């Protein structure tokens, strides 16, 4: 898959989706008309940083600091951003 974002790009949640922490499910969820996707912890960490202000590089730096023992974090993040873009959850910001 061609990466959807380069290091200087700024990903942002798409207008048609809302990201929210749900206490009852102890996870981030994506909300859209009459539906919901429950995110795994890694996806939630990444998407919650797609705020239309931070660059991909900044998001990666931030997560590398938070999870210093995780291997291949950069690749995982780039992959997930491409998947999220494919799903139309995120777009190129700022919005």
């Amino acid at each position, binding site marked *: 898959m061609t990466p959807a974002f380069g290091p200087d790009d700024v990903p942002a949640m798409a*207008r*048609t989706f*809302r990201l*929210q922490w*749900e206490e*009852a*499910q102890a996870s981030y*969820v994506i*909300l*859209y*008309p*009459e*539906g*919901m*996707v*429950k995110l795994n912890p890694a996806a939630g960490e990444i998407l919650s940083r797609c705020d239309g202000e931070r660059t991909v590089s900044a998001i990666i730096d931030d997560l590398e600091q938070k999870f210093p023992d995780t291997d291949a974090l950069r690749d995982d993040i780039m992959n997930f951003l491409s998947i999220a873009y494919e799903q*139309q959850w995120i777009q190129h910001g700022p919005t």
Partner: protein
Amino acid sequence: MSNSGSNTAQPNPHRPNPHWLLAELTYKCPLQCPYCSNPVDIARVGQELNTDDWKRVFREARAMGAVQLGFSGGEPLVREDLEELIAEARQLGYYTNLITSGVGMDERRIRAFKQAGLDHIQISFQASSEEINNHIARNDSFQHKQAMAKLVKQHGYPMVLCFVLHRQNTDQVEEIIQFAHSLEADYLELATTQYYGWALKNREQLLPTLDQVQRAEAVAHAYQEKLRGKMRVLYVVPDYYEDRPKPCMRGWGGIFLLVNPEGVTLPCHAAGMLPGLEFPNVRDHSIEWIWRDSPDFNKFRGDAWMKEPCRTCPEREKDFGGCRCQAYLLTGDAANADPVCSKSPHHETLQQRVTRIHASHAGGTVSPIVFRNMRNSKRILSGEL
């Protein structure tokens, strides 16, 4: 309601939470669609819940994990406190859905809803042609709906357009899809008529033929591919033509909670007509008690209530035995397997009914449509219809 959220998280069977709260704010409606999901006894409804009642319902359900809130009816725009209710719901963290005909809407209200934090507006159309739309709705609403759909997009809402499909508009699926696309809908819901309440009363007139259904399905699937990434097209085959039952509401008391205009709570749109159940009212009980402890919400939870063939069926955790209301309406016992299931001993009877319906069309003996209005509801209650 429609189930366009295919990814809703699975409930924990031991401690299910209501994820979906449907607030039927009123039964008043300027339209008279003959497939309305409201019960046929709408004329019997008592006093509507007031603003504070609804706010309490929203708070209590939200505390239990409900996250999607639908404002529905009747026509929810009839309620003058709608803006206030949306604001309260949004502030509680709900994703707020307004499910409307668009009649009673104008730009001032669309703007006020946005300010209140409304997330999404779903507008129902009756057809893609003015003539059929206005015939089914029994009013002159088509052009207004179109104007409202354009404004909804202009104000930056995600937009779902919903068309209920039946015998009279199934052949226009292609025109419907193109019409929705021209209005820049984000989602198009091609909702199959479900035969409960008013639609059951009009089943003979509304049930499409298998041939119609198959053609519509092929068109819908072709456009799902063609419009991928532009407009999501949701299409479900009418279950009378299926042989596996639908996982109705993801199980009784699984994720869905409906509160009707007078505060009666239900696990689906139709369950109010099931005999032997006294669904609790939010005026008397907390949402927590209703959802977790009330006998009615536990009646068909899990699989202890099941009879054969469901009891030992390997698919019982997938489809929950289908729909309790359909089982009751078509077999006389809500604990039977949904007769849509080919394993049901009543499956053949259902197929024969369908054949008879089509034969009555061929023979020209179809009775007139009973439109959904208070007058007809009273006539049904008095036994006249």
